[in-house]
């Protein structure tokens, strides 16, 4: 019990600290790849600190929903992170929910963020909310099918169980169903974290922004909470992807030694995935909004193929 509590604290701290670093890293690498110097890796921490200290302006049209959302978003992202086996195969709060609860918690955060986009009565916010909800709706079946593929193979929706089952002797790097499901999940990851073929995190051009449009009216510490929450969500989704499909270094028991080893492995896996995201972002152009469903239905079909191939090869 004591150990569990320390894992809980460690993972909470890790999520809080690692998340801004990961977004900083992606920004920095992206700039490097485009022959720019780019912001420092630590820049998101300074941004958060600055936002936290700043005065806040709330829209005169907004209601209490607008003030509740930053907390909901931050807390749901953090709680979702605690359902995930991050460093070792033990998820601190795995008993409280598996992958379905994780997806549900992130959806709850998104629900409130989209409401807050509509709240200040600005057309930009409404546009962002509309697009965000619709893209996530189209992405959802692909994500669920990809998750089902691994969950059915493991016979469980509990994430620790999925990780442990995929570590078994049957695990192969190029298992066709896993490779297909991974590709589908990677596309969904790009959509869910607002990355380039779907959304451009760096833009503030009215007609192209999706996620940023919803945040337009936020300032001060609310903005800090939202930015932080979104960074945590990104970390959670990326860690979910690498830990489910590449369960290397996730020890079944948590001791200081396995924790350190797991941390190293996690860092390595996240760096590789971040590199992949940066490559995709730099080498692709943003898609028109109505081309995005094509991309996501491709992900859906990949996930369906993954499932069918489980059926064929088992």
């Amino acid at each position, binding site marked *: 019990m004591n150990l569990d509590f320390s894992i809980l604290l460690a993972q909470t701290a890790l999520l809080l600290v690692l998340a801004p670093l990961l977004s900083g890293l992606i920004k920095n690498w992206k700039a490097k790849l485009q022959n720019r110097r780019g912001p420092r890796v630590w820049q998101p921490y300074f941004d958060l600190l600055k936002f936290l200290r700043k005065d806040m302006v709330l829209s005169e049209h907004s209601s209490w929903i607008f003030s509740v959302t930053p907390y909901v978003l931050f807390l749901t992202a953090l709680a979702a992170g605690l359902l995930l086996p991050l460093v070792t195969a033990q998820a601190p709060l795995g008993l409280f929910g598996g992958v379905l609860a994780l997806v549900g918690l992130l959806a709850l955060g998104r*629900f409130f963020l989209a409401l807050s986009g509509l709240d200040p009565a600005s057309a930009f916010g*409404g546009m962002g909310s509309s697009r965000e909800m619709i893209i996530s709706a189209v992405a959802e079946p692909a994500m669920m099918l990809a998750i089902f593929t691994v969950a059915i193979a493991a016979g469980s929706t509990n994430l620790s169980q999925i990780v442990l089952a995929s570590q078994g002797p049957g695990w192969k790097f190029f298992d066709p169903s896993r490779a297909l499901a991974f590709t589908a999940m990677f596309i969904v990851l790009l959509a869910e974290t607002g990355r380039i073929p779907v959304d451009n995190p760096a833009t503030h051009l009215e007609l192209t922004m999706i996620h940023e449009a919803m945040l337009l009216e936020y300032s001060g510490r609310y903005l800090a909470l939202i930015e932080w929450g979104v960074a945590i969500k990104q970390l959670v989704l990326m860690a979910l992807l690498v830990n489910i499909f590449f369960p290397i270094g996730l020890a079944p028991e948590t001791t200081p030694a396995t924790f350190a080893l797991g941390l190293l492995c996690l860092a390595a896996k996240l760096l590789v995935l971040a590199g992949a995201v940066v490559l995709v972002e730099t080498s692709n152009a943003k898609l028109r909004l109505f081309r995005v469903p094509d991309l996501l239905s491709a992900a859906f079909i990949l996930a369906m193929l993954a499932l069918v191939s489980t059926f064929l090869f088992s």
Partner: protein
Amino acid sequence: MSDLEAWAHIATSVPPATLLGAALCGYGLGAVGGLFCMRQEKLAAAFSFGAATLSALSGLLAGLLMLGGGAGTPAPQLELLPALIPSLRFTVRLDALSALFLLVVSLLGVAISIYSLGYAKSFFGRKNAGLLGAFYNALLLATTLTFVADNIWMFLFAWELMALTAYCLVSFEHEKPETRQAGVLFFIMSHIDAGCLILGFLLLFQASGDYSFASLHGVGAAMSPGKRDAAFVLFLLGFGIKCGIVPLHIWLPVAHPVAPSNVSALMSGLLIKTGIYGLTRVCFDFLGAPPLWWGVTILAAGTISAVLGVLYALMEHDLKRLLAYHSIENIGIILMGLGAALIFLHTGHPLLAALGLIAGMYHTINHACFKGLLFLGAGAVLHATHTRNMEEMGGLAKRMPQTACYFLLGAVAISALPPLNGFVSEWLTYQTLLQGFGTTDSLWRLAFPWSGAMLALTGALAAACFVKAFGITFLAQPRSPAAGAAHEAGPWMRAGMAVLAAACVLLGLFPALFIRLLDPLTQQLSGVQLSSQLSLNHGLVLGLPAEKAGSVSTLGLVLTGVCLLPIPLALRLVFARKARTRRGPTWACGQAGLTPQMEYTATGFSKPIRMIFKALFRPRRDVQREYDFSPYFATNIRFESHIEEVFVERLYRPLRITILRGSRRIRALQAGSIHAYLLYIFVALLLLLVFAL
């Protein structure tokens, strides 16, 4: 405390049959009383809705006692009236399945009746509130009777009474032409479904030779496969019309919105559940040993209804029609659980069948709660703004703060978001479908994850739809003067909503407690009790029977959130101590002021979905511009956009035209000459004689 215990003892020592009888009498009294003092509206409304509240409470207690008694409790039987004709007996029986649905009707009945005590005021001096109360009680009586009827006569009698009272309530505001049209459509569809049911029951009667439900138990074994399948199809059509399975649903989004809002809540939350009750009763109790294709058909029908229901809901900007389409979606989700359970019964997995039943039944209770809540909220909004059009609402969260809170709770619940009840039952449905994959080696097993993916799509689209419904209705600036002058609902109306909101929260946080009540039901229908295996850690965590197959605790998630809350609060204390907060205008690209016209509309919000699913919706739009010198500087623009359901256009309209044409032909027979009629009678007699020989 001892007082309370004494009361609890008295309450539990009353037999459920007495309570049920009291409830039925109470509804009857409420109906008669409402008619009797129709001239004094206030008295009539208070009496009839008060009687409905008390009767529903009594029914609630009866259902709870029956289900709380565990699996072994004998089902009490009650003779309502002395039998006039030997085989025509008015008997009711409260077995586990009936008790569960009695629980649903009574829970919803309590909340809506309380709400109606306040809501009836809006009819004073305009329409007769006493008449409304009388029909309302009669509808509750008929629905309760449908759920507890113990023989075919009683069931069909209650079914018809329900259809007729519902028709009277749908066309309550019959001055409006759209209401009259909706009423007629409802009437026609109700009678098609009653016809299918009569035929189906005749087939069953042929095999059993007796009208009582007890003799119909497992009667399918005595029927030939062809007749069993025919009976299944007839019941699927009949009950499918009632619960709004796509494509039999066309009456539902037309009829539900035009009724008074308390009746809409009753119809959407409850009336369509009679279809679910009937299907469950027939498929699990009467026909027995289902072939594979029954389950697959129901699973497929559920999946299609869920996806299409939510897609059409997204296209609506009439708040009540939007909610009506969501009923179709949720019926689909319930059917997914039931269809999967039927498949498992076929493949011989009673444990999983019980899980599917629990998922379906839990969603039935949940849908009644949140859909009732949402319709009551919509009623309060309608009452305050006098419009159902969302494009004329907005800013209501500030003007009706409590209604907004309740509506938001309902929206989160129906979008299947944790920690509320919709999430729990969809979690159970997902688990049922996932477990289904391993039950068979045939290609059919791909249907389970496929349905699961469609359930995910449905959930995400429902969330999008309720961001729209709540955001456009309650947030931002008022879009019309009426919305700007809106006022909070009265205390009775708020109390009614509070009851259902509390039910949503409790059903969400303590699912294991309620699943225990389903034990007698799964014992009756699949022969297994599952609740002890589903609850971990003293019922605080919901887990699957298979070892470590997955668990969820909504309560745990909420507590996690509460424990993490100090983090953002501490951040504020440490860093933002000196920061000030002020109100300012919303950024409008430097223009002077933001007008409500600049806000995103409901139609605009769902435009991307309309574009993505263009092939399904086939939207028609008509833009007329008037301009002086260039089309880019229009002086006047008229925009019209219209979506017609593909089923109405492709299926029902040709059908209607064919029927009308056919009846015009047949009309030639009706010459009006008595000689011709005599000839017809003679020919008919001859034919019958030939047939008899």
